[in-house]
């Protein structure tokens, strides 16, 4: 399991939920979901791309991003069947849901979470809306210092909300979000372009965190030979 977790994950259900994030693939997928369309949109505005085909590419990429959102479990299942399960085994993926401590948890799950009701993750419901909220907060704060303020808020939000989750982030892990916010504020971006920056930074952060986790996972668990694979 990830040694950089901020809390001790001990129950078998919570360990199973944490196992979903052991390879960094969910973070990479959601990182790409944010980064590709919003970075393209930002680049097209900054570089004044007016060509119809570039706009078409952006629309197609944005549509693929939305498809990725709805198909993310299938995409992850496909990737994990080839990367993770042959190396370290398969366990039932966690239910995407608010934490068990959420007051409406029992009502909202309608009992479907039992008996594996510890195998639950709030990663999607906590991390993704927080990054998206940057768009709205930056639109309210027109001053240039608004961007680092919003990014620091997002970093703090991810840190606090993820503390009891299957994928907790340490303060060191979320620090780059706030720091890059200060760097982005130094760039000469228009107000419209600044709206896209939280999604670009959030996407790049998720992609970077996931890639780092994947590299460490692959180094720790080399591809098994044919004989070992057959056992699983």
């Amino acid at each position, binding site marked *: 399991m990830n040694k950089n977790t901020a809390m001790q994950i001990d*129950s*078998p*259900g*919570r*360990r*199973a939920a944490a*196992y979903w994030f052991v390879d960094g693939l969910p973070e990479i997928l959601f990182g790409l979901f944010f980064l590709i369309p919003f970075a393209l949109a930002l680049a097209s505005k900054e570089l004044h791309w007016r060509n119809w085909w570039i706009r078409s590419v952006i629309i197609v990429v944005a549509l693929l991003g939305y498809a990725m959102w709805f198909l993310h479990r299938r995409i992850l*299942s*496909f990737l*994990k*069947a*080839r990367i993770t*399960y*042959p190396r*370290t*085994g*398969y*366990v*039932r993926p966690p239910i995407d849901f608010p934490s068990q401590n959420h007051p409406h948890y029992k009502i909202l799950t309608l009992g479907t979470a039992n*008996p*594996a009701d*510890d*195998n639950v993750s709030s990663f999607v419901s906590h991390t993704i809306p927080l990054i998206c909220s940057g768009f709205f907060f930056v639109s309210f704060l027109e001053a240039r210092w608004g961007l680092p303020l919003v990014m620091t808020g997002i970093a703090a939000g991810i840190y606090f909300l993820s503390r009891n989750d299957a994928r907790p982030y340490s303060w060191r892990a979320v620090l780059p979000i706030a720091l890059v916010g200060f760097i982005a504020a130094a760039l000469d971006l228009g107000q419209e372009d600044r709206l896209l920056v939280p999604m670009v930074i959030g996407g790049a952060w998720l992609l970077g965190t996931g890639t780092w986790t994947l590299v460490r996972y692959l180094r720790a668990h080399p591809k098994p030979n044919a004989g070992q*694979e*057959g*056992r*699983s």
Partner: protein
Amino acid sequence: MNPQIRVVAQLDRLVHEPVRLMILMILQGAGEADFLYLQREGGFTQGNLSSHLLKLEEAGYVEIEKKFKGKRPLTVCRLTPKGEAALSGYSRRLVRALQANQNPKGQ
């Protein structure tokens, strides 16, 4: 002897064995898991896990399904309702007996 402590003698011996208890606990928490995950999570050897899984399957506590994820074969194990009941009954009896042992005057 305290009758609550005598309950220990009635514990389900199939569940009481540490490796089998660990397997049942992992499966209860995780929902379902394959052979490799169970092996790594519990630190079992391949032969040890196979023999204990077979006993649990024979008792109807665990069901084992061979399926494919992509093109990879997976031996997926999950707890049956009978196994769930056996585990909860075992833990209830054991906790009661241990509590009675710690607080004998309360009986």
